[in-house]
């Protein structure tokens, strides 16, 4: 089976992974969505989950964050098993989450949105540095959160988890529906965060974008990881990738 082949590869170069997911299964109500996801993310790595719509990429992030009805298997973060923990305890271990729909609160101002997530660890970015990254936010602090443009909302969604000291960031399609110039800005931000030592799991539809930021790519299909491609080998495997993604 392809899954076994993936596991045999040296997934993370040297040492124990920061995040290790084993035989993860998850359900939305009665429907069984994940059928055994296995993946490793090393400290400081940027890893993407690629795959078609409905393959289970978003569900994988939700399961790691603990915001899904029922899940089974093993998820260890920094050596600690989290499968039984409520999401608030998982967040407190140092995982920051940017959901697909961005999750900007309409009843909170931009500033309140930015300052909402409590600090979970020391070492978060100071607010001033977040404003340097995303100057638009500083000018609109008093606006209602959802009055921002799509791109600004995405910046706010990313900015507010940089403050908290979380060292693993789960980003669900941060480029979806955004203009190319904004996508470039978000790409630059992700590369900068990698340089600072953040570990990032990125869900993407757009593998061209993924290629500019990631170290490795996991291919998800029908609730399983079916392949892993290091970024350096992406061009060599482009035909295979096209088949996987149905492009």
């Amino acid at each position: 089976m392809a899954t076994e082949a993936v596991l045999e590869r040296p997934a993370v170069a040297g040492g124990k992974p920061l995040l290790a997911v084993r035989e993860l299964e998850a359900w939305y109500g009665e429907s069984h969505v994940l059928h055994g996801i296995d993946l490793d993310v090393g400290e400081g790595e940027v890893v993407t989950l690629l795959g078609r719509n409905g393959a289970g990429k978003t569900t994988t992030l939700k399961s790691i964050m603990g915001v899904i009805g029922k899940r089974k298997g093993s998820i260890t973060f920094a050596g600690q098993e989290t499968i039984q923990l409520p999401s608030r305890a998982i967040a407190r271990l140092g995982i920051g989450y940017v959901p697909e729909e961005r999750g900007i609160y309409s009843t909170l101002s931009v500033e309140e949105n930015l300052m909402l997530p409590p600090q979970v660890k020391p070492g978060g970015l100071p607010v001033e540095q977040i404003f340097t990254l995303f100057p638009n936010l500083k000018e609109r602090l008093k606006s209602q959160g959802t009055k921002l443009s799509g791109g600004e909302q995405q910046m706010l969604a990313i900015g507010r988890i940089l403050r908290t000291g979380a060292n693993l960031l789960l980003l669900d399609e941060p480029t979806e529906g955004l203009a190319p110039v904004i996508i470039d800005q978000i790409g630059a931000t992700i590369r900068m965060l990698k340089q600072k030592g953040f570990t990032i799991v990125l869900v993407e539809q757009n593998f061209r974008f993924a290629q500019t930021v990631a170290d490795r790519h996991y291919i998800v299909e029908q609730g399983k990881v079916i392949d892993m491609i290091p970024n350096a080998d992406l061009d060599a495997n482009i035909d295979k990738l096209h088949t996987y993604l149905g492009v």
Partner: protein
Amino acid sequence: MFELLGVPPQALFGQVLLGLINGSFYAILSLGLAVIFGLLNIINFAHGAQYMMGAFVAWMCLNYLGVNYWAALLLAPIVVGATGIVIERVFLARIAKYDHLYGLLLTFGLALIIQGLFRNYYGSSGLPYGIPPQLTGGHNLGFMFLPTYRGWVVVASLVICLATWFMIEKTKLGAYLRAATENPTLTQAFGINVPLLVTLTYGFGVALAAFAGVLAAPIYAVNPNMGADLIIVVFAVVVIGGMGSIMGAIVTGFSLGLIEGLTKVFYPEASSTVIFIIMVLVLLVKPAGLFGRTA
């Protein structure tokens, strides 16, 4: 001018004051209901019973423990709020994942039990509770006589309502509360303890009802049915203002009290139904209420 309206000024201002007093209670009670509904999605039918408990705790404090009105004003909300916290943890938290209707039925049942218990031990004729000595008497304002205690009720309610509004709309705790109301799952995923917020919010909403109960004790007799009579009107107020809107609950509470008072002057026959007539009209035009957000 008053002659033109055909109403003596004493009667007019007297009813305006009475309207404001009723409005004070409508405002505090509908504010508590709105806060609870916002976060818990539960229509708290026990609210009237909890208001009554506030009045009774004040009465018990005075008659059993010799604790005066001012201490009771602080103590009763804490005691009754604590019973609310127990109710939330023992009952409401368990049915949180089910339809609204279960919460409504459960709190309605609790209200009947609580009122029945108090009726059993204290009868339903009502117990007197004196006005605190500092607030007896009144002032002649020229155009009307203002009893000091009634003025105090209006001022105290306004202060409590505005303080609550400020806490919810302008503080960090309020931001947590609004975030948990809007998107509990994500708020939890940021590491915020939403179940604890829910419990505290219910306790706070109940404490507001108890505070109103203490304020009411010297005006109305302390009676096991005092909440049941009031709560139906308060629900109409909440529907008019819009469920879940904080400022809406406050503004609607005071204005409907006022409108009710004025109706007593100009068309007394309609005074007990005017709020329900307004409710029907508002629902026809704005089903989400005057200040309500359509989801």
